[in-house]
């Protein structure tokens, strides 16, 4: 019996060698010396395989990253930076295939179908580290806004992947800069800022309006 991993490998190999997906599942299954129905037991379509590749690479990053001894000592900001640095390193191993899977996706503002399994993974991870940051006081808890933080990070995710796909600098050094800058900007916005204090101050003043009346202000 052919394992999912073997199917995945052969599929990637076929796509990269021929520049396109196999003509039919029948054809592809035959080349693997398996029956079409056996193939469907594992994957329902080729695009399922592509999704699986993304999902595996993402999971691999999340696992590898948390194995780092330093991981528990990182702040939320550093955890997110570390995720992206590891992620582009892992994606690099399948760069050609990754570019192939996104090639047909032209509407850049929507989430590509091939990433539909990656998105919840990333969002779970984001939510975990955002909550952690809020617990430690690193990030500001803001009504209605703080549960949208993860959406902002997903936008960053899409931006960084797009940047990396177009990056032609040596060793993708520019992508590293994009990560350092982008993630830092996001986290700068997530953390407590003078605006929060201003908001709090306004709340304080309105709550103590009686006192103000007495003072004749």
């Amino acid at each position: 019996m052919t394992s999912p991993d073997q199917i995945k490998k052969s599929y990637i190999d076929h796509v990269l060698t021929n520049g396109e997906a196999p003509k039919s599942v029948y054809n592809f299954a035959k080349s693997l010396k398996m029956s079409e129905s056996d193939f469907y037991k594992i994957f329902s379509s080729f695009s399922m395989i592509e999704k699986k590749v993304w999902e595996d690479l993402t999971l691999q990053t999340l696992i590898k990253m948390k194995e780092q001894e330093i991981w528990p000592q990182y702040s939320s900001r550093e955890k997110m930076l570390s995720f992206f640095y590891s992620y582009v390193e892992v994606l690099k191993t399948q760069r050609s295939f990754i570019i192939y899977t996104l090639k047909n996706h032209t509407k850049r503002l929507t989430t590509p179908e091939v990433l539909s399994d990656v998105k919840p993974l990333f969002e779970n991870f984001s939510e975990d580290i955002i909550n952690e940051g809020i617990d430690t006081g690193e990030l500001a808890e803001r009504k209605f806004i703080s549960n949208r933080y993860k959406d902002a990070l997903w936008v960053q995710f899409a931006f960084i992947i797009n940047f990396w796909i177009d990056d032609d600098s040596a060793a993708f050094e520019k992508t590293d800069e994009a990560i350092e800058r982008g993630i830092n900007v996001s986290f700068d916005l997530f953390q407590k800022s003078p605006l929060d204090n201003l908001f709090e101050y306004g709340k304080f003043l309105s709550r103590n309006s009686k006192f103000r009346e007495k003072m004749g202000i």
Partner: protein
Amino acid sequence: MKTQESMPTTKVARSAKFIETGFRIGGNYVKHFSKKLFNPDLSREELNEDNAEDIYNSLSELKGSALKIAQMLSMDKNVLPKAYVNKFTQSQYNAPPLSGPLIIKTFTKSFGKSPDKIFDTFNLNSIQAASIGQVHVATLNGKKLAIKVQYPGVADSISSDLKLVKPFAFRLLGMSEKELNIYIKEVEERLLEETDYQLEVRRSIEFSKACSNLKNTVFPVYYPELSSGKIITMDWIEGLHLKEFLATNPSQKLKNKIGQALWDFYNFQQHELKAVHADPHPGNFLITPDEKLAVIDFGCIKELPENFYQPFFSLVVPGLMDDKAKTIKAFRELDMIHPDDNKSQIEFYYKSYKEMISLFALPYRSKTFDFSKPEFFENLYAWGDKIAKMPEFKQPRGVKHFIYVNRTNFGLYTLLNELQATVKTDTFQPKIN
């Protein structure tokens, strides 16, 4: 130290930073002149202080080559007003560090492993900034190591930084673009060399070997197998920086010993190797507990070609300058007198440069020299001030090699002055054919 969270890296972001500085400097001038309307006695010191502060702030946020330029400007104390110098000298020690994950990424890229897999311990918090990189402490097999990690994108941005810094250089030095270009190019070449850490490791090993016979000077061991284009691994050397060392109230004898080691280190290189460690800023040296001078950075090496070395150092050894024709010939070779200068110009530059070289070469003219004497430096600065005001010196003169040779020797003199050392100056004599 506060960790710097964002580094403006694209050219646009960097330009924005510089433009901001430009505005603020403009503002400072406005402030200065409007105050001056009411108080004519107001000194330029305050203005310079304001400007220096703004320039420094934007430079230190930019990091990399811009910071390097700040350092370089601060080396030439004789060219810049005091307030600039004080601010810029800060840049030799302080620059905010980069994020931990990026450090790990840099290691993974170079070695395929994170630093904790390579070393027994690795401290992700850098202990020191090194202008185009930062220094981390690690241990391996019981040995303490110093690891220099370069900021990503530094090499990329040097040329664009230099283009951006040019207008400020023109303003500070009062030169035109065309005149400055040849010098900027020399600086750019050296700066680009400095970003090549593999080259630095190679040179560090070469130079520490060549200088191994020097008394009282030590070098760290370098580990090429643990170094890459972005990372340098070397032994950690215990010791104090010059300022810390001086704060311990060392005896005059000890100060002379360290001063002598410095003098020998530089003059051995200049006259025996004809290539010199051209970055004599205090951050590159340590004084070890067993009273030795440790040299910990070979990023910037200036090679002295014969067609510069011979005419320049022939002026330094006694005798030649008594012969006017020979002196003028040397000045011509060094481009200090231009071919199209007329008679009175030749006479003028001959006199001025003779005065300068005599001052500069003073330490070579006796067997020992006391660098604690303020007169020597006052004379040097006074000469620098004087020529800065003379229209004849608005045009830069001299071959490009002067930049780094001057920087090296003035840097050395300044270090010796800070040490208040008396040194034997005849240990390594210029080799004139």
